[in-house]
């Protein structure tokens, strides 16, 4: 009466596997097309990858280059703002955003995703102030935003962020007043601080679409990241002879210019911001780099590119002479 169950080939529940994947083509060709594992978030491929996140990284790799430099007395953020239309007003439509007084964010990739990232960062910074009556440390903002981006890799209903964000901040090295406090408290006593320890300072974090974040001396993302990273590695950012903030501004401008490929890319505008300590030029605040300094940095950047080109040509000529 009951038909006997014939031993079918796919009786056990499990991910749909294509013959291609079975033959190991996935591993050798690094492709996910047709396997089905790239169709939704929150599904791992059998070799442990989340393809949606990897595609999001591709979106970042198409965006204008952003970099961040952490030097001894501050942080510089810079972005290559690609001009998509001649009808856009110059130096309007800022790409670097202020999140709290002492915090700035720049990102490469899908700009609307970046805008949402900034909105959320501002909410986090404000919530921190409401709760603790003190500015959010850069590390804590990076942690919270890293967690937020990671949450967008977990669910079928959402897609990951198409951005990599660089978060720069200067945590006050001074005794920070609690928001709205009155008086200075007792004039004697340590106030819970170790006099020998250094508090605050410049911080730089980069958060990727997977939610991964690390602290960096120099960070680069977007189209020109390879060239930018190579340049950043040449700088002495960790050592004792570390860069000053103003030198870092000039380096940042130069790196954006180096990372830009004139022959392939559209025209761009350089946008830069900086954050110093209370004793520095921005008095602990995240601000746009003043026009005069930015223009000077751009002039030097163009000059250094020119010099490199000249050297190359000289070399070529020398080679010819030898022949």
């Amino acid at each position: 009466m009951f038909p006997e169950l014939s031993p079918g080939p796919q009786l056990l529940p499990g991910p749909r596997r294509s013959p291609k994947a079975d033959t190991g083509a996935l591993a050798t060709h690094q492709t996910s097309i047709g396997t089905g594992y790239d169709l939704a978030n929150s599904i791992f491929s059998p070799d442990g990858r989340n393809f949606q996140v990897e595609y999001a990284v591709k979106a970042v790799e198409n965006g204008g280059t952003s970099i961040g430099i952490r030097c001894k007395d501050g942080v510089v953020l810079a972005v290559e703002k690609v001009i998509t239309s001649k009808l856009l007003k110059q130096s309007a439509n800022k790409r670097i955003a202020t999140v709290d007084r002492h915090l700035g964010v720049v990102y490469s990739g899908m700009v609307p995703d970046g805008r949402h990232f900034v909105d959320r960062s501002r909410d986090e910074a404000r919530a921190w102030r409401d709760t603790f009556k003190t500015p959010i440390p850069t590390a804590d903002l990076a942690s919270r935003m890293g967690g937020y981006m990671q949450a967008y890799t977990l669910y079928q209903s959402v897609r990951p962020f198409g951005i990599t964000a660089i978060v720069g901040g200067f945590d006050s090295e001074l005794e920070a007043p609690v928001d709205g406090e009155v008086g200075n408290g007792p004039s004697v006593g340590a106030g819970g601080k170790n006099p020998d320890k250094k508090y605050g300072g410049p911080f730089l974090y980069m958060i990727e679409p997977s939610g991964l974040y690390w602290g960096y001396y120099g960070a680069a993302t977007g189209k020109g990241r390879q060239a930018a990273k190579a340049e950043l590695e040449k700088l002495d950012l960790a050592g004792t002879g570390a860069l000053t903030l103003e030198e870092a501004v000039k380096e940042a401008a130069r790196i954006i210019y180096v990372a830009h490929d004139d022959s392939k890319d559209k025209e761009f505008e350089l946008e830069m911001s900086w954050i110093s300590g209370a004793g520095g030029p921005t008095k602990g605040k995240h601000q746009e780099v003043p026009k005069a300094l930015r223009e000077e940095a751009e002039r030097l950047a163009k000059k250094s590119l020119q010099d490199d080109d000249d050297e190359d040509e000289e070399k070529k000529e020398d080679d010819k002479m030898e022949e």
Partner: protein
Amino acid sequence: MDHRPQAWGRPRDDVYGAYDASYLQTSGPKNATQSPVVTGTSVIALKFKDGVVMAADNLASYGSLARFTDVKRLRVFLDSSVIGFGGDVSDMQYLDRHLNELAIDEAYDNDPSAAPSDGTSPPGTLNAANLHKYLQKLMYKRRNDFDPLWNQLLVAGLDADAKPYLASIDLRGTAFTSPTLATGFGSALAQPIMRRYASTEEQAASRTREEAIEVAKECMKVLYYRDARSLDRYSIAVVTKEGVELKQDELLERQSWAFAERIRGYGTQTV
């Protein structure tokens, strides 16, 4: 017995009588703050040709007790305006936090480093005149909610044309401007002295910074002599195009209490 779900877990009416809900006022005005608790006394301010000087002592009183002697009642907003708070100190802290949020919001879209060099604020930034209007609306709204913030505020800075600006707001949202202003006891004790210095805008516009500071210090001294809720430690701020110069730990100089010996007729004295 009442078995309706509404009655579950409640004292039984047949045992304890009906619940008296009359204390849960369902109509009538809200019983919010009806008097201040910890208070600051007078704030004084006067214009001069390039800006405004403001001063207030560092005392927060708990009734007649000099409770906190290190309370800074002058607050800087966006490095370009100063607000002086008289009245309730907790409401001052609330306002200070609120203004701090406002200042951070301002920084999202406006870059102070992009400001024009002529001293005028870049379009879109909150100057002292804007700030005063904002606070006036805030205070009036709270009054209409029957939950006023128990303060009188002085706002000093520059207006949109980079001219000195000074104005006052009280807990009802009443707002006005004048070349010299004082809150609380100061309106009776300091205002006459300041009006001798400048009773009109024209006179204020001919006065120098040094003269203004001198008069402010004189007023603070008179207030300390006469106002029983005052202190000889005070803060003084000078706002000009160049920004705000704030000193928070000044001490009244050249006091003379010799006259006190001759005073008769107070307290338990009989002769």
